[in-house]
């Protein structure tokens, strides 16, 4: 029995689907949500969000947000959410370079923190893009 999943960003509804499992990066570590999970509200971190459906895993890159699990429904309010095959590798790579340069030339501590966050975002997007879609679940 699958569960309902909705991924929403401030700009649009990214995905509405029935899925078998969701693995999400939360502030308290990675959590896996299976159908009929107990009600949960948690804060998401930067990272890889995996959607399991029909034996395939679809990875998304998320940069923080919130996840609510209620009545066999998972709602993810993400700051940004990009499916791996939507990620523009060249742009992500450029963003990583830019962030690294900014870290080198960071004048204040605040600049440093911002550049670091940018670098982490870029790395996650690159990693998720490389994993690609349609990976089979290992038994």
């Amino acid at each position, binding site marked *: 029995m699958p569960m309902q999943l909705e991924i*929403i*960003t*401030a*700009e*649009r*509804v990214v995905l509405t689907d029935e899925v078998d499992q969701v693995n999400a990066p*939360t*502030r*308290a570590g990675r*959590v896996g949500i299976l159908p009929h999970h*107990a*009600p*949960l*509200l*948690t*804060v998401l971190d930067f990272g890889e969000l995996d959607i399991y459906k029909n034996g395939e895993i679809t990875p998304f890159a998320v940069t923080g947000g*919130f996840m*609510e699990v*209620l009545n066999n429904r998972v*709602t993810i*309010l993400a*700051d*940004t959410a990009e499916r791996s095959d939507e990620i523009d590798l060249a742009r992500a790579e450029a963003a990583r370079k830019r962030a690294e340069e900014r870290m080198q030339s960071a004048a204040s501590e605040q600049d440093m923190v911002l550049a670091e966050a940018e670098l982490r975002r870029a790395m996650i997007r690159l990693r998720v893009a490389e994993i690609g879609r349609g990976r089979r679940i290992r038994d």
Partner: protein
Amino acid sequence: MASTREIRRRIRSAKNVSQITRAMEMVSASKMRRAQRNVLAARPYADRMLELMTDLAVRVQPSDRKGTLLDVPDAVKHVGLILITPDRGLAGSLVSNALRQMSRFILDQRAMGRNVALFALGKKGRDFISRSGLRLIAEVTNISDKPTLEDILGIGSNVLQAAQRGVDYNRSGSIDEGEQLDEVYVLYSEFVNTLVQRATVKRLIPVELPEATTVKPVDFTYEPSAEEVLDSLLPHYVEVQLYNALLESIASEHSARMVAMRNATGNAKDLVRDLTLSYNKARQTAITNEVSEIATGAMALEG
């Protein structure tokens, strides 16, 4: 009576103007449709977030609200206003309505003995603020027609910092140390419909939650904890509201410009019609004059 050549020149220029305004009208019309779609697409996020917070806030004791963005201060001394305006003009009365609303807001707040610190999103508002010598804390300009949430995070964190720990003093030192914004408002152009946009002031901080009528009997697990989840939701909600206000202002901008340009095209057409009439009259007069001159000459010869 203006010469026929002069009138012809003015007809030509009026026609050119009407072509330009017609083109601008069509560009604005398509941008408006896109902007309206963006407003609608952004709605589910804000709605869900409000639901989450309403549920959560019930679980957080009023005493625990101290120091959070829900905390309603006893006395308000400093307020912040985020002014959202377009970067470009030619949008009818949209900008002047917003600026008038801002002036009224500032006067009202001052009458209550409060200081107003201004934040500008968009060139028109920023220019007005700096021209009139008001205190500008931060600005963002050159906002794209399809902004992302990230585009406003800069000014959002500026405002949030100012509301929680006093303003960032690195900037121009225009604010006194320890000055904390007790309330923050946003002034944006509410999109009522294509013909009506309303300059609206909305309170962002403290965050206002709808009264939860029924507490859902759901026993949520909060990770890490209810307080922490609420603490990260609140600033986010402020940013999302600011973002939605920006999206709505953009839709308003384009529809106001579309209507203004449609009127301008109509006016130019009227002008062309009037001028063509004068042109024909002037031409007729000239011909009549010529004919009567020839006739007089002929009659003189016959005489």
